[in-house]
């Protein structure tokens, strides 16, 4: 029987899920420091209760702990995401006007993301940045896949409306 108390299993669980736990908390609250702390706290709890938590349950366990940690505690700050430069890198002859528009678009996108309700933003970014499938997000959030699809749909709709100024 594999056990989370075993160092290599614990390390594996940590490496697999810590980044997503970090992002998950960051998308929720926009606070990097708290996201780092959440990872530490969630996995310390997992370590302390390693005998009671099976490796299969470890994943949802750390998300639940991380989520409960800051429930109603911190106010959401602005989620500051990094924008990869791929768009401008793979093209050469770009007009200053195009670059300007790109920059403006990014600002609009950031603002629109920050304007989303916390659960829609978290779901949306877990999918877009972390590439999490709807089923996986549903597991993390503890809701149905249908609810996640609803959030995705509403998030896209709101983002477009916010950016296009509809």
């Amino acid at each position: 029987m594999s056990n989370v108390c075993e160092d290599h299993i614990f390390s594996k669980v940590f490496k697999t899920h810590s980044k997503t736990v970090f992002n998950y908390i960051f998308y929720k609250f926009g606070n990097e420091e708290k996201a780092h702390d959440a990872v530490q706290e969630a996995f310390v709890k997992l370590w302390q209760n390693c005998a009671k938590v099976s490796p299969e349950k470890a994943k949802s366990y750390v998300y639940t702990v991380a989520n409960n940690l800051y429930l109603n505690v911190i106010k959401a700050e602005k989620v500051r995401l990094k924008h990869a430069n791929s768009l401008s890198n793979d093209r050469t002859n770009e007009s200053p006007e195009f670059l300007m528009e790109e920059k403006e678009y990014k600002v609009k996108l950031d603002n629109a993301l920050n304007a989303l309700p916390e659960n829609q933003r978290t779901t949306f970014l877990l999918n877009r940045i972390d590439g999490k499938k709807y089923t996986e997000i549903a597991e993390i959030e503890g809701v149905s896949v249908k609810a996640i699809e609803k959030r995705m749909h509403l998030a896209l709709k709101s983002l477009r409306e916010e950016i296009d100024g509809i």
Partner: protein
Amino acid sequence: MQENYLAKWLSDELSEEELQEFQNSEAYASYQKLKDATSSLKAPDFNSEKALQRLKDEHIENAPKVISLNPFKKFLRVAAVIAILLAGSYFYVNTLNEKVTTEFAERSEVVLPDNSEIFLNVDSQISYSEKNWDNKRNIDLKGEAFFKVAKGKKFTVSTDHGTVAVLGTQFNVENRKGFFEVTCYEGLVSVTHNNKESKLPAGTSFLVINGKIISTGTPDGTLPSWMNNESSFESIPLKYVFAELERQFNVKVSSENIDTNLLFTGSFNNTDLNMALKSISTPSQTHYKIDGDNVLFYAGNTLQ
């Protein structure tokens, strides 16, 4: 278009026709741009190796640090013991019996919680529980005392010779070495001696000398004579008279060529030693000498 079609579009779950329909819609271009833009977004850097190291350093590897909290646990243990001792001694002190003691040539008066009164003769001691008084009216007596008991529940006087139980009355108990006398002045007193109960109506006495019950005459007056500074005896062996004299005046009494078992009837004053000595020596036909705190009684025919 099905429910949540935007979500389905993002996860490539739209059917051919639906996708066609969506691509022809006015908003499609905006959504496509959103899709492209958000696919290149990145979250802040997170180094999972570093985070794991931090976790191990701070929380797991250094777990023994938790043990270093033990001194506090020890302190808690000591504190708990002290707390228990304090609480215990508080409880003990609280339940400790009240004690009143008189020395030789000293008397005292005690008023109990229910206003019963106890007059302690010389060299006597009573103890009782003040906290528990309302539940149990019990007095432990050594020596002699006169009781005026307020009406109420059963009132008991425990001595090593026996127990005296009353409801509300006035009585005197004398409990000395080899000598036990209960005199009832009012009401009814029950005396239990050697598991045998005797009822004493007002104006009677119960006397035990050296384990032998001795019938006595009726006591005079409504108070024991010592309450009026007199010690009275009726057919009492001389040695108990001498013992009482020692207690009343705080002197040392010795005798020479005298049978101290001879019975003595009479009384002596408790305030004037010379008078008291005359009161004893005359009826008992003995002589006495005083030397400081020592009194010697001797027979008339003893050569000095």
